[in-house]
């Protein structure tokens, strides 16, 4: 689309154009870690409030357990956002994958079959999203908004609107089992994040994603297969979201059509928080992990302080704004 505005809903580029390269002083460099500072500040604050609880092994494990599935979904979102797109269907995909796994288990299929089928569902959805965006040139926003709608509908059909449960231990162990007293999803989240980080950093496809996210046109004219790469990014996101959905079902021992729907907003927020961590302002895995940590620490900390959940919600928004503002100060210029 040529006539598309070159501006960027979603990413600010307010006042500085090609020429106004921001100078960076030492002080400003420090601030570019603003998001990290925000995380540290949150940790210190909650630690100061409840030194006896907040940084104990149990509570840290708690936080990790609580954010592990969000972290996986956020990895999926990061990959797509590196390419400069969005995937609004990640949470829905994870629900559908979890529902499919649940339905197959309920129908007496083996854990292996259920898991493989659920992974395949995630992959297929990612592929469809990728085709819509990369080959039919739909805006990622519209395409994944629409597919999200359909996917939720499909999940209702699969679960018949109920909550499926009573899964074999072989399945629920994936979400509830422990190794060295740490729950499995934590390991899996770390593993998936590490793999994604390595792929983004060290593989040609990862670097192509970054190039495309930086400027599609230059990437294309440099001989990068833009379509194939974008297709792959969405496919990977679908796959990873599917895995997240399986783990969520295993973790809760149940699956339903709307389970984990808040992972969409939180995953986007985490990636955005993470984008402020690095200089280029691009989506990046390290940043996403920090974003996820901020969200996890905030919600756990507020729970521990016993803050009313409505007030918590108000505060959550304010903290996100504060964190991003803190780190965006560095790029302010007239």
């Amino acid at each position: 689309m040529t006539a598309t505005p070159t501006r960027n809903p979603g990413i600010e580029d307010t006042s500085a154009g090609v020429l106004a390269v921001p100078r960076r002083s030492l002080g400003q460099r420090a601030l570019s870690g603003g998001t990290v500072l925000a995380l540290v500040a949150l940790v210190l604050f909650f630690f100061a409030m409840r030194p006896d609880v907040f940084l104990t092994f149990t509570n840290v494990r708690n936080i990790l357990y609580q954010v592990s599935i969000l972290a996986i979904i956020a990895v999926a979102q990061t990959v797509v956002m590196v390419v400069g797109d969005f995937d609004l269907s990640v949470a829905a995909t994870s629900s559908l994958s979890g529902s499919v796994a649940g339905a197959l288990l309920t129908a007496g299929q083996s854990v292996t079959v259920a898991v493989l089928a659920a992974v395949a569902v995630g992959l297929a959805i990612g592929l469809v999203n990728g085709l819509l965006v990369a080959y039919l040139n739909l805006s990622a926003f519209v395409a994944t908004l629409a597919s999200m709608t359909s996917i939720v509908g499909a999940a209702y059909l699969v679960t018949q609107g109920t909550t499926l449960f009573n899964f074999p231990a072989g399945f629920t162990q994936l979400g509830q089992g422990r190794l060295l007293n740490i729950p499995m999803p934590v390991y899996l989240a770390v593993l998936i994040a590490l793999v994604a980080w390595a792929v983004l950093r060290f593989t040609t496809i990862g670097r192509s994603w970054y190039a495309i996210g930086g400027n599609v046109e230059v990437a294309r004219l440099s001989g990068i297969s833009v379509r194939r790469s974008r297709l792959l990014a969405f496919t990977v996101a679908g796959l990873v979201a599917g895995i997240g959905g399986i783990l969520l079902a295993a973790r809760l021992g149940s699956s339903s059509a709307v389970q984990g729907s808040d992972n969409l907003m939180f995953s986007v927020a985490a990636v955005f928080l993470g984008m402020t961590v690095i200089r280029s302002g691009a989506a990046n895995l390290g940043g996403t992990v920090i974003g996820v940590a901020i969200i996890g620490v905030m919600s756990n900390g507020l729970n521990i302080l016993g803050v009313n959940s409505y007030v918590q919600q108000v505060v959550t928004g304010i903290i996100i704004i504060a964190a991003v503002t803190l780190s965006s100060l560095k790029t302010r210029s007239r």
Partner: protein
Amino acid sequence: GCGGSSGTDAGSGGDGGSGKPFKVIAFTSGNQTPIGAWWVKQVQADAKANGWDLTMIQGDFDFQKMNPQVESAIGQGADAIFDGYTDVASISSIVTAAKDSDIPIFAVDAGTEANDAFALNVTSNQQGIADQTVQEISKQLGGLQGKNVMVIGHDPHPGIRMRASLAEAELKKAGANIAGGSIQKVKSPATGRTEALALVSDYLTANPGGLDAVWVGWDDAALGAAQGVSESGSKAIVTGCDASSEAIAAIQSGTSPLVATVEQPWPSVNKTVEDAILAYQKDGTKPSETFDAVDTTLVTKDNAASITPSDKLGS
């Protein structure tokens, strides 16, 4: 008579002379919940048996979409309106339209208190639910004095909201401490299970051994709370409400902290309301009481096997 819009006195609701079938507009906002889905099927079947001309409108909790549809159906004339599980608060505009057209609304579980919106609203007895669950907790803990009990509610649902505050009051009266000082609120039904899980886990981390029981307003969240309790290694017990199959299974397992839930007799409630509609169809009589709250059954390990789960109602 063929409905208020034609000016006929609705009091003569009987289908005596006109030969036209009795026209009923039924609606529910909760058709994506298992109970809502059951109700839709049940009413459709019963309407066929009763020879009603039924218009069924389903709203997915989207009142912006559902209300105009119901109102426009009302505009086209009907003899009676049948509300399934949609709270009076969310259907003010429907109530107004029905009043204007002089068509009575019969309702299943559409509000926790008597009001003049309905010719009849039958629901379950929230006080009873609170009594049964709190008594069960008391029984299992050997009294409530000094016990720490967390109460988890969900304000947008009037039933849950009411039973949660009744339970809280009762617990306090019996000398229990309310964990966290007041009712803990789950924000979204979609994420009720994970929210309750985090609430309980985090509370138990901050206050190790700080819970003797968790009272939860509905089963989905109760299952999350139970998971939080067991993962934290706490000995606390959990109660829920709704008698979902998953909750019943947990209670039967004997290994879950979930020890009790409550069955609400929806099939009989629905039957009562449909009977009232039939009576109105026959000769225009309306029920003398506009509100009834029926008794519920506490489900524990002892009777769990004999209860039909609420999400398996039609099957």
